[in-house]
């Protein structure tokens, strides 16, 4: 389902116009529930997927409530391990091929928004057993998980925020300006997705075709042309990914605002980050915060409590593990392992560099370093290009020979 499609946008505007005409919270909630199911059905009508999704949701909710009543952390850990294993199999990660019989990965099951359902479920279970969610109802939980604004690609809203809306919805946007701002946000999102991102993708595809043509001809393209082609490919894809995803977020955040639902922001000028740790608080922010809260924090705290003397060394390892896993989530083929390793190394290196600066110049030296505008400009430039380099390993739809990675490896004669 394309959120920038005319059908989706017309549906969104109709919902925004009619939602507050419905009398009472219950009728509005029922309307949203029906819409959630309808979007899910349109995205994937396969009965097997619905059954498996139902099993996921019921077991997740049941485990959270059961473990909360009994403080059964061992059982939760077991459930999360099994849940993660099933998630990994359903995502068909190629690196599992040597470990699992091929048949297991050749299943026909496709669950719409599986990754985001997984993230929300882990958050819900952990927060529930830690007493951070009071009296969760299955009705609220079900709509939280199936909320069509966040179903396809996030943002990863927290249960507490959704529940406060669900139980006591916000009133209609207070002023005409607020409504216009929401429409403008949607319009900007549509522009990003359907004009800018689409044009970049078209250019990227065309450049890929050029590369295949050059390879099929006896005479290679002149060096300046090849260099211009490489740079074009290098920048086009990261820019396309950003505009496409940020545009999607603009549409769903603006659309949700029309019915009084506040969704978390997912981007904050990520290409102006000064290092890769900073980058992950600006790019797909709700994923970065989820990783911080449900992978990095528990891992670091467990290790640092066990051996406080080695806490700072553990921090580097935890940064690596957390962002290696983030990288791995982004794809299923073997190239994504390199992408993930580069992100794990990038965040660990950023922390190591900061520790070195602190050791060398103390807190005053670090502050001076952080306040320097030329250093900031250089740091932003280097971070942007490091990220752009990692995207060379990001899976795309182009044939391997048409990609800039292939050209780079051929140039290096590797």
């Amino acid at each position, binding site marked *: 389902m394309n959120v920038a499609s005319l059908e989706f946008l017309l549906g969104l505007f109709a919902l925004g116009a009619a939602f507050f005409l419905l009398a009472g919270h219950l009728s509005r909630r029922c309307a949203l529930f029906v819409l959630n199911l309808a979007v899910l059905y349109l995205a994937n009508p396969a009965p097997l997927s619905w059954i498996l999704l139902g099993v996921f949701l019921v077991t997740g909710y049941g485990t959270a409530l059961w473990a909360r009543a009994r403080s059964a952390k061992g059982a939760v850990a077991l459930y999360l391990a099994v849940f993660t294993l099933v998630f990994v199999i359903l995502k068909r990660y190629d690196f599992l091929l040597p470990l699992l019989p091929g048949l297991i990965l050749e299943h026909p099951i496709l669950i719409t928004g599986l990754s985001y359902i997984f993230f929300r479920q882990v958050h819900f279970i952990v927060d529930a057993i*830690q*007493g951070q969610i009071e009296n969760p109802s299955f009705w609220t939980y079900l709509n939280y998980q199936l909320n069509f604004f966040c179903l396809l690609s996030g943002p990863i809203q927290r249960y*507490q925020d959704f529940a406060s809306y669900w139980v006591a919805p916000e009133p209609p946007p207070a002023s005409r300006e607020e409504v216009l701002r929401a429409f403008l946000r949607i319009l900007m999102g549509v522009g990003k997705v359907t004009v800018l991102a689409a044009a970049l993708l078209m250019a990227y595809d065309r450049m890929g075709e050029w590369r295949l043509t050059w390879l099929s001809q006896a005479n290679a393209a002149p060096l300046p042309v090849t260099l211009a082609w490489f740079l074009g490919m290098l920048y086009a894809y990261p820019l396309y990914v950003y505009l496409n995803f940020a545009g999607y977020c603009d549409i769903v955040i603006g659309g949700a605002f029309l019915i009084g639902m506040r969704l978390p922001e997912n981007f904050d000028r990520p290409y102006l980050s000064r290092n890769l740790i900073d980058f992950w608080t600006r790019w797909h922010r709700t994923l970065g915060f989820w990783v*911080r*809260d449900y992978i990095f*924090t528990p891992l*670091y705290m467990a290790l*640092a409590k066990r051996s*406080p003397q080695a806490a700072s060394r553990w921090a580097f390892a935890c940064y690596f593990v957390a962002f290696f896993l983030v990288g791995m989530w982004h794809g299923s083929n073997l190239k994504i392992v390199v992408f993930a390793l580069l992100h794990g190394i990038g965040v660990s290196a950023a922390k190591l560099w900061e520790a070195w600066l602190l050791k060398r110049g103390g*807190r005053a030296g670090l502050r001076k370093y952080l306040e320097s505008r030329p250093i900031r400009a250089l740091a932003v430039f280097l971070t942007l290009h490091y990220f752009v380099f990692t995207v060379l390993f990001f899976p795309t739809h182009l044939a391997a020979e048409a990609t800039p990675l292939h050209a780079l490896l051929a140039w290096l004669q590797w």
Partner: protein
Amino acid sequence: MDELRAQLQEVFREVFDDEEIALRDEMTGNDIEGWDSLMHLNLIIAVESRFGVKFATSEISNLRNDGENVGSMVSLLAKKLGRG
């Protein structure tokens, strides 16, 4: 509460290795040098150990949100210790 603040100040001084820290409720991460996300976790570990309490994952991250400050930590700690 004042005793709690004084004890918390000792923890802050120890974690940030700065004997001159004088806690006030309105202080945030910007007012204490080095209070970044990693030091926040070290601070939480030290507070848990000193007061024998445990913070939930979402409490740890919420304490770093905009609008939260030392006063938020004092209140949460007091609640956990049954002094709130």
